[in-house]
């Protein structure tokens, strides 16, 4: 189980990018975090693995045996120990492109391997076979010997899921795992993540409310760093508007439909207005 309590991420000037975010995620949950770009979704996920250190708040991960791992206010060694139990799935381009697919999967268990052995001997055959099982779960065994850099976006995303599976984590974190994929590949990734979430909870940042409604068990809406929605994944249009805000934001400038006549100005630069048009 993951417990995030009251985390705050501040810029040096005091602006709060993540503002008092709290939630818990337990067994069998597939949680989607929704929100506009820059709302604080990724930052929240980065805090959970300790890639960004929150200025306030606490994050703890509880294992089945009752052991707990914190990723806030801990030393580097303790943070590494906690990270072993968090399976990370980024948005594309996070594989080591010059290593083979299978080696990339095996990287998932680096936290359990002595660094000296990494330098002198490398991975064992038994580990490779185990990684093959993880690769099989995402249906990518045929690509095991290829270089990761030669894969397509959807294939890369699957391999990074296999890497997380091979890690045998207590929770999966997926930062926009389907944002760079076409709808068909996106569905395929969701169809892998959904059964995975029944064994181990999954938290992901998404931009597709329709896909979320179909696959996830719960949604958390973040707006300007604050949680504004926490409930079922099936979100009404009204609630969506609440999460994404209305069109006053300048990043939502409407695009002119191709057939529409714009207000016309003559070459003498004098405005020629249509009736009822406003400048």
């Amino acid at each position, binding site marked *: 189980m993951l417990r995030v309590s009251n985390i705050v991420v501040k810029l040096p000037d005091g602006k709060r990018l993540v503002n008092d975010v709290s939630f818990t995620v337990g067994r069998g949950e597939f949680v989607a975090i929704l929100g506009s770009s820059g709302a604080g979704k990724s930052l929240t996920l980065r805090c959970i693995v300790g890639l960004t250190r929150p200025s306030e708040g606490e994050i703890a991960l509880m294992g089945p045996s009752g052991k707990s791992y914190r990723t806030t206010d801990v030393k580097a060694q303790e943070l590494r*120990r906690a990270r072993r139990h968090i399976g*990370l799935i980024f948005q594309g381009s996070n594989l*080591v*492109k010059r290593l083979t697919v299978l080696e990339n999967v095996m990287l998932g268990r*680096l936290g359990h391997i002595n660094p000296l052995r*990494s330098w002198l001997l490398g991975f064992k055959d038994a580990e490779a076979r185990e990684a093959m099982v993880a690769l099989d779960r995402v249906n990518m065994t045929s690509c095991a010997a290829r270089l990761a850099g030669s894969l397509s976006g959807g294939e890369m995303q699957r391999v990074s899921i296999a890497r997380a599976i091979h*890690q045998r984590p207590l929770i999966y974190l997926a930062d926009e795992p389907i944002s760079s994929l076409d709808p068909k590949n996106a569905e395929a990734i969701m169809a892998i993540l959904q059964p995975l979430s029944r064994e181990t909870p999954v938290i992901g940042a998404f931009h597709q409310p329709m896909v979320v409604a179909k696959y996830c068990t719960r949604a958390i809406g973040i707006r300007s760093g604050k949680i504004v929605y926490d409930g079922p994944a099936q979100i009404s249009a009204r609630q969506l508007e609440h999460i994404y805000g209305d069109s006053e934001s300048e990043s939502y400038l409407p695009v002119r439909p191709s057939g529409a006549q714009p*207000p016309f100005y003559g*070459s003498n630069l004098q405005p020629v207005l249509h009736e009822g048009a406003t400048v």
Partner: protein
Amino acid sequence: MASPSMTPFRQELPFLEWKRGIAGQRLKQAAIAGVLLVLVALTAWRCEVHMKTFVLGIDKGLPLVGMFFPPEWSGMVGMLQPLGVTTVMAMAATILGMCLSLPCALAASSNLAPPPLRLMMRAFIALERGLPEIVQMLLLIAIFGLGPIPGLVALSFSSIGMLAKLLADAIEEIEPHMLEAVAGTGATRSQVIRYAVIPQILPALFANGLFRFEFNVRAGVILGAVGAGGIGYIMSTAMNSMDYQRACMATLLTLALVFITERVSDFFRGRILAGGLLR
């Protein structure tokens, strides 16, 4: 009502702004060209470079060119050994430089090394790059005496300087997501270097190393003339004793050596960058 000669006002102003920008750029380019031209004229005047010197030089030099031919073919076999000395010196310096530049590059990259170490290493690299090989050579002769050893050390030193700088830049270009994904599994910094950094920069190391080998062969000839032995030494003694036909033979052999190393290095570099070699 929309005729092609009439531009909507909405487009007119941004268009004029763009045009102004382009005109500004043209003006800047013309100004730079003008400044360069004035500089060339000024330096030619101050350093007393006259076309007359060229013309008279050609007049005096032409008969001298005839004295270089025919090359002293009988000396060729004897020159093969010094040629080998130059090649081996360049090769050993390149290999030594490649091995030592890797730790230097790791310590000089902003995304791996802590700032104080990085600044120290960057300063060290700048120092190595700031001293031309020939200056290093003259300093080293004072320590080691004449012979290929000071040449080898001078070439390795400047190889480290160039390769470490290029490699550090290659390391800084690695996508941060890739490093974070590996670190996020609980891997130590040394494991991140072993599995995410080294595989990514290995091609850059070898491609730049081959390039440096070409350079070292040419620089080795020059260092030979100031005391490192090899074909450069043969060349300089022949010129000093006005044995121009022997000098011509040495020149031909040097040309052949440089040409062959260039072809070989091009071939392997192409293979490495295409991903055939080194996987």
